[in-house]
C-alpha cells in the first residue's frame, strides 16, 4: 500500500483519491464538517468560512471545501480554534440582518415579550418563514451562538415581493452566494450575481432591473438552495416544514421526467421541490414544474360524470355514465363495425392508464384505431 494517499482526520486515518478536498474525504467517511455556501456540482469557494478546519503544523485555519487533501495531512475538524472560528463566523452572519429566531433564549426577557418584539420587528405575526428549516439557525443552535445582541438590524434594501413566485427578504440574506452558484453554474441562466461593494453588497438578480425587463426565468433553483429565509416561495411563505409530508413523484410537464417532492399538508400540495439525490434532474426544476401546480386544486376540476341532454350537461352517477358509454359504444360497434370507433389515449396519463386503454381498444372494441398526441 505504498502508493496509497492517506490523511488523518480527528486521529483516524483514511485513504483518499487525489483531487478530493478535505470536505469530500470527511463526507465519504461520515465525519460531519458543517458547510453552508458549498453547493454540490459547483466550484467551491470557501466564501462563508463555516467549513474551516485546522491542519497540524499550519498557523491559519483553512476552508475544507476548497482545500485539497494531501498525503500525510493531519486535520482537526472540531478543535478549540475551529469551534471559536465557527462561532465567530456564525455571529458575523447573525449580525448582518434580521435573524431574530431566538436560537437561544435571551437571558433577561420572557419568551412572550421576546416574541412580541420579534413580531413588531418583522411586521408579521409569524416567525421567520425559514424557522425550523434554516441552516444558520441549526448552526447557531449547535454552536450555541445567540443572535439577541443583533436584534432588529435594518436592511438597506426593502423586501421584494414584485415577482409572482419568490419573495426576496434582504434582511435575512447572509450573502453566502449559493443562489449565485445555482444560477450560474447549475442552471446557467446567469441572472444572479453579487452586486455593489462594502456595506451595500447585495445579491442582484437580472441586473437589478425591474422584473419585466430582466432575464430571469423563475426556475427557482435559487429558492431551492437558499439556506436561510432570504428566498421563500410566495404561495407557501409560512408553510412549516414539520407540518408537511413529502411525497416523491415525477413531474407531469415535459418529457425530461424530473423527480419532484410534493410537500403536502391537509390534502393540499403547498409546494414542490426538486429531488436532489436522484437522476435525471438532481434537484433542478423549471418554472412550470416548481410553481405550476395550482391546477390540481382548481375549482374547475371535473368532479362528477356528466351526460349531455338537449345540448346541456347534467350530473350523473358513475353507473349511469359508464352504462351509457358501454351501451353506445356496443351499439355503434354492432351497427358500423369495430373500425368505426377511435380511441385517443394520452401522453399525459400513466403507463398503466395507457395500457388499460390499449387493451380495451384491442381486446374489447376489437380495433387498432388507437393513437395519442405524439404527433401534435
Amino acid at each position: 500500500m505504498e502508493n496509497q494517499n492517506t490523511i488523518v482526520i480527528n486521529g483516524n486515518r483514511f485513504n483518499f483519491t487525489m483531487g478530493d478536498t478535505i470536505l469530500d474525504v470527511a463526507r465519504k467517511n461520515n465525519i460531519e464538517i458543517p458547510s453552508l455556501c458549498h453547493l454540490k456540482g459547483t466550484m467551491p469557494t470557501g466564501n462563508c468560512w463555516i467549513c474551516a478546519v485546522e491542519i497540524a503544523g499550519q498557523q491559519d485555519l483553512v476552508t475544507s471545501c476548497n482545500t485539497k487533501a494531501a498525503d500525510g495531512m493531519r486535520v482537526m475538524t472540531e478543535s478549540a480554534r475551529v469551534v471559536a472560528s465557527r462561532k465567530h463566523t456564525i455571529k458575523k452572519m447573525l449580525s448582518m440582518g434580521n435573524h431574530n429566531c431566538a436560537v437561544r433564549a435571551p437571558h433577561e426577557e420572557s419568551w412572550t415579550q421576546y416574541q412580541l418584539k420579534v413580531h413588531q420587528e418583522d411586521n408579521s405575526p409569524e416567525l421567520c418563514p425559514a424557522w425550523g428549516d434554516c441552516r444558520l439557525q441549526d448552526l447557531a443552535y449547535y454552536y450555541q451562538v445567540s443572535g439577541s445582541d443583533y436584534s432588529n438590524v435594518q436592511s438597506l434594501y426593502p423586501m421584494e415581493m414584485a415577482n409572482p413566485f419568490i419573495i426576496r427578504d434582504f434582511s435575512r440574506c447572509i450573502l453566502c452566494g449559493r443562489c449565485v452558484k445555482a444560477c450560474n453554474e447549475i442552471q446557467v441562466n446567469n441572472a444572479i450575481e453579487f452586486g455593489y461593494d462594502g456595506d451595500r453588497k447585495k445579491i442582484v438578480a437580472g441586473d437589478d432591473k425591474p422584473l419585466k425587463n430582466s432575464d430571469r426565468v423563475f426556475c427557482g433553483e435559487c429558492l431551492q438552495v437558499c439556506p436561510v429565509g432570504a428566498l421563500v416561495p410566495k404561495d407557501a411563505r409560512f408553510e412549516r416544514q414539520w407540518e408537511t409530508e413529502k411525497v416523491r413523484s415525477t413531474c407531469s410537464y415535459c418529457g425530461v421526467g424530473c423527480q419532484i417532492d410534493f410537500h403536502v399538508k391537509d390534502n393540499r400540495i403547498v409546494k414542490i421541490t426538486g429531488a436532489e439525490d436522484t437522476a435525471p434532474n438532481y434537484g433542478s426544476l423549471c418554472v412550470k414544474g416548481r410553481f405550476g401546480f395550482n391546477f390540481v386544486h382548481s375549482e374547475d376540476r371535473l368532479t362528477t360524470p356528466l351526460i349531455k341532454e338537449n345540448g346541456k350537461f347534467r350530473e350523473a352517477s358513475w353507473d349511469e355514465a359508464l352504462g351509457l358509454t358501454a351501451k353506445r359504444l356496443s351499439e355503434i360497434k354492432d351497427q358500423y363495425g369495430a373500425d368505426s370507433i377511435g380511441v385517443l389515449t394520452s401522453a399525459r396519463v400513466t403507463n398503466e392508464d395507457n395500457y388499460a386503454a390499449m387493451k380495451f381498444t384491442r381486446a374489447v372494441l376489437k380495433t387498432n384505431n388507437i393513437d395519442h398526441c405524439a404527433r401534435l
Partner: protein
Amino acid sequence: MTNTIGDVEEADVILVTGSNTTENHPVLSTFVKRAVKFKNAKMIVVDPRQIKLTKFAEQWLRPNLGTDVAWINGLMHVVIAENLHDKEFIEKRTTDFEKLKSMVEKFTPDFVEKITGIPARQLIDAARLYAKAKAGAILYCMGITQHTTGTDNVKSLANLAMLCGNLGIAGSGVNPLRGQNNVQGACDMGGLPNVYTGYQPVTDEAVRKKMEDAWDVTGLPDKVGLTVTKMVPMAHDGRVKAMYIIGENPLVSDPDLNHAEKSFSNLDFLVVQDIFMTETARLADVILPSACFAEKEGTFSNTERRVQRVRTAVEAPGSAWDDWKITCEIAKRMGYPMAYKNAREIFDEIAKVTPSYAGITYERIDREGLHWPCPSQNHPGTPILHTEQFTRGKGLFHAIDYIPPAEQVDDEYPLYLTTGRVLYHYHTGTMTRRTDGLNERAPESFVEISAQDAEKFGIENESMITVASRRGEIKVRAKVSDMVDSGTVFIPFHYAEAAANRLTNAELDPVSNIPEYKVCAIKLSSAA
C-alpha cells in the same frame, strides 16, 4: 433518446436543431449549457429562430423553414468531400453508404445555400466541427418532425450520425426530446395504431397469438388502425362514428381547427375523460372525470426511456377516478372483465407481455428509474442504445432528396408562420393557465414579427392584428422581435382564444402522419 440526459455533458460537440430547449425542456437545457460553459463542448444550433441557446453556440445556422433535408445533406456532402467520415463505423455497422454518397453529391454548399439561406462558409465550418468530434450528440425536437418531410428529416439526422460514427458511445446519439411527460410511455404501451406494448407489431401473427393468450380473448384485429390525423378527417366523412378521448384536447392541439371542430361535431358519440372541461370535452356526449398525476399511483417513461414512479400526494376531487379504473369499468360493462386491484397489478401484466419492460418492477424503481430495454430482473437497464449493433442489425443509410414544404408563400399569403411553445405554458394551457404567476408572465398570445416585416406591413408593436391563412384567422398582439427573421412569424399554440392551429396546415407526412405545424403561409392586417 438513444443516449441519456446526463450523457449530454459527455459530448464534445452538440448539434441542436428544431428544439427551443431552454423553453420547452428547461432542465435538459441546463445539461447542454453546462457542457458548453464548463466542459468545453462546442454547440451548433440550427434553428430559424434566434432562440436563447444561440447565445451559447459556437455556430448558429439559420435555415429557411422546412429546408432541413437540404442542410443535413449539405453537411454530409462536406463530410464526405473532405474525407471526414468514419470509415470503420460505416464498414462494420452500416449498409447502403454508396446510395447516400451519390444522393448527397449534388448538395454542394452553394446549392444548399440557395435552398436554405445558410451561407456556404457556415455550412462547411459546421460540418467540420461535427465530423471531427470524438463524441457528437444530436438533439432535436418538433422543429424537425412536424413537417410533411418529418420522417425524412429524422432519417437524415440518423444518416449524419452514422456517417460520423456518432452512435452507441457516451456523449453521442440521435436524441429526440419528447415534449410531453409520458409520450414515450404512451408509445411504449402501444397507444399507437400499429403496435402493442414494446413496439410489437399488430400485423405479426405470433405477437397477436401471444396477446390473445395473455388476455384470454380471440380475434384480435390484424389490420393497422388509424392515426389521430386520419381519424379526424374520417369523422368528418362519417366513417368514424364514435370516439373515446382520454386526457387530450385536440380542439386546441389539432391542425386546421375549423375543420377538426366540424369533424368532432359530426360524431354519433363522443366520450371524453379528463380533469377539466376542455374545448374538446364541451363537444362530448359523456364526460368522465379523472384523477390527475398528483392523485394516482403509476409510472411515466421519460424521454431517455427511464421508467419512473408516480405517487399519490393528495386525494382526487369529488368522485374523480383513476383513468385505468374508468376504462376497466367500461370494459366490464361491455362484457369483458378487466379487473385490477391497483396500478401495480397492471404494471406487472405490462412486464409480462413486454420484453423491453420485463425486468422492471415497482420495487426496482422505487428510488431511481430504469432505462428500457430491461429484459430481466437482474438486467441493469440500457442507458445507451446501439452500442454493439442496431435493432435491425446493420444501420441502413437512406438516400433522401429534398422536398419543399407543402404550402408556399404567394402574393396573397406572403409570410411563413411557424408555431411552438413558450416557457411559461404547456401545450393547450389547461394546466398552466390555471396558475396565476404563470399567467402573469405570459398572459396572452402574440405573434413575433421582425422589425422589417412590421414596417413593410404597417404593423405597430403591441397592437392587435389579424393573422389569416387559407384555413382561418385569429387576432393576436404583435410583438416586434429579433427572434424571427424577416419573412417568417411565430405564434405559440397554447391559447384557445387565439388558437394558432386555426391557421396551421393539416397536410401530413406520408409515413408518420404528422401534420406540418411548422410551416404554413399567412397574411397580416391590422385588427378592425
